[in-house]
């Protein structure tokens, strides 16, 4: 391991947005000044207690935070091992952790005087969370979404439209999240003077991975305090699903310096890693450059990005936030996978055991727990980020069951 102290290891990124060799800013020149400006504005506001006061005020009264830390006794009993605690991000307004970030970035957009907001979305959760804050602030909003995803997340498309957003179907490339992100970057370069781009995860060029993390950190900050209050100590392990990695880093980051706390990120294993049909860059990929940063990517030997597969649209992405790439390399966090099928049975399991319908993304974290918890002692505290609720996935699951829901 590196000779750096814990402070330096975990206090990334550096001023150029690097986490070790990862991160950075890889975009066309047109966007460089806009990113410089965003970094300048955010660096200043980050020091301003009034900014954070407004952020936390919105989180309390609009989002409904703090979200509970729930001791899932039914699940714990059924698994017969570790004590399972669920961080209930599914109870947030709009149904997932995504809104923590859009509330924060909307404040930035306002501070920068932008009149128009754009976003990319996969599952539609980030799109809905963006359309929501745009409606609240009276800003024009365009959401880019791959046409594969508009099909499997039709309810969220309609929600965005109800909220007044324009949903732009993206038909290029693999027609999923990565292509939506390409299209958002193109729009941003074209309308850079008026437009604020709300990236939905801890990816993209610097300063996005940093600022999205900072906004999502409220998850881990609350969870840490709740664990101390409710259990009298810190958890032994943290579990979160990893698409771009925002709910995972939001949970992990405030615990990074608690060296005894294990961290497990769960990527989408799709139909199995050996089939190639998955979305697990940290488990199978190699460092490369996509969407503004250097990170682990799924690409072929010529550097072309591979098509991904996951049952959950929100995890269906060939890259991952650069800070996760770094945490993997320095071995502070571990990254594993569960398959579509395991996620699906976890979806059913949690629904029946706890009366909580999880998002298919979050079901990946639950599936890991189902595999790992039985082998752990009863005094092991496992804290799982339940990043979102499953209402948006009812159709997908019903279809698999052959039911017309």
């Amino acid at each position, binding site marked *: 391991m590196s000779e750096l102290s814990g402070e330096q290891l975990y206090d990334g990124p550096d001023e*150029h947005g690097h986490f070790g060799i990862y991160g*950075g*800013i*890889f*975009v*066309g*020149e*047109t*966007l*460089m*000044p*806009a990113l410089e400006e965003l970094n300048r504005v955010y660096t200043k506001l980050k020091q301003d207690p009034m900014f954070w006061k407004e952020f936390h005020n919105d989180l309390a009264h609009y989002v409904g935070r703090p979200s509970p830390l729930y001791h899932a006794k039914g699940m714990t009993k059924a698994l017969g091992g570790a004590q399972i605690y669920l961080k209930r991000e599914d109870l947030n307004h709009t149904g997932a952790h995504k809104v923590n970030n859009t509330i924060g970035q909307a404040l930035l957009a306002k501070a920068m005087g932008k009149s128009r907001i754009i976003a990319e979305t996969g599952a539609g959760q980030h799109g809905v969370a963006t359309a929501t804050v745009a409606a609240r602030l009276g800003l024009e909003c365009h959401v880019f979404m791959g046409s594969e995803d508009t099909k499997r997340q039709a309810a969220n498309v309609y929600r965005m439209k109800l909220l007044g957003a324009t949903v732009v179907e993206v038909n*290029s*490339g693999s027609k999923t999240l*990565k*292509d939506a*992100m*390409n299209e958002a*970057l*193109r729009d941003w*370069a*074209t*309308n*850079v*003077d008026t437009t604020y781009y709300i990236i939905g995860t801890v990816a993209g060029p610097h300063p996005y991975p940093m600022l999205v993390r900072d906004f999502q950190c409220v998850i881990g900050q609350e969870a840490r305090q709740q664990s101390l209050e409710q259990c009298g100590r810190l958890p032994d392990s943290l579990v979160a699903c990893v698409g771009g990695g925002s709910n995972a880093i939001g949970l992990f980051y405030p615990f990074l310096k608690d060296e005894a706390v294990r961290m497990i990120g769960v990527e989408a294993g799709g139909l199995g890693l050996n089939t190639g049909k998955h979305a697990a860059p940290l488990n199978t990929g190699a*460092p*490369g*450059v*996509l*969407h*503004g940063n*250097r990170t682990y*990517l799924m*690409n072929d*030997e*010529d*550097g*072309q*990005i591979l098509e991904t597969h996951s049952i959950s649209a929100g995890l269906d992405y060939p890259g991952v936030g650069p800070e996760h790439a770094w945490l993997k390399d320095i071995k502070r966090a571990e990254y594993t996978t569960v398959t579509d099928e395991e996620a699906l049975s976890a979806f059913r399991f949690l629904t029946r055991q706890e009366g909580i319908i999880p998002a298919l993304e979050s079901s990946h974290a639950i599936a890991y727990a189902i595999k790992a918890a039985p082998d752990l002692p009863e005094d092991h505290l496992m804290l799982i980020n339940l990043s979102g609720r499953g209402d948006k996935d009812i159709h997908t699951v019903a279809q698999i069951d052959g039911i017309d829901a």
Partner: protein
Amino acid sequence: MSRIEKCFKQLKRQNKKAFIPYLTAGDPNIETSLNLMHALVQAGADIIELGYPFSDPSSDGPVIQRAVERSLAKHTSLKGVLALVKRFREENQDTPLVLMGYLNPIECMGYQKFAEDAEAAGVDGVLVVDMPPEEAHDLLQIIHRSELDCIFLVAPTTHEARARKICELSSGYVYYVSLKGVTGASHLDIDSVRTNVNQLKSYCELPIAIGFGIKDAETAAKLGELADAIIVGSALVSLIAELKDGHEYSRDELSKHIALMAGMRAALDRS
């Protein structure tokens, strides 16, 4: 002196502007690309920008996106594009070639191998769209040890301090992006290009090439007056899009098909 530098010196002596067409290699296939490159030289191209495909061209508009998709459908690789350059050089040792594309294929090949192979194939310059000066250090170190030029972009959003740094780091020429947007856009404002390019000229010692949004001979002539070179991409790629993949085109047929290029060249010379 690099081939690019020599080219600009010679044009300057003749009081001419450089005409730089862009095409995506492998669209609709490698054979046609090779013939198109020769046809472009016949049409009066001084330098050719040769795009190597990347699956996620986030700075490109729909015309070049589709060209890239056609090229990738043929499994065109960076390696394959270097082989194409080599074949072009068997016949043409004079026209400078600039590779243009995104960073990931180069990262995958490895910077050192890329620079060596590109130079050996007969490439003269490299323009990596998503590699701003801030992230160019490692590749530049390697490129500086080779004969290759490294070309960077200056955009309408670039402020002077950045632009000065970009001019210092560049060699060969500087690519001025004429509009805020992606390739193939059409909201060109010639007055603002004039203002920005004039300012750039006051401290940039390299030739300045203007690209993005040049679709006809008239615009080519107007922008040619402002700088040392013009770059034409989407207008050419739209013509290439009409070619059939299964068909073998003679150079004459291709020349006829891309007659717009010779027209732009002529307009540029009149300006």
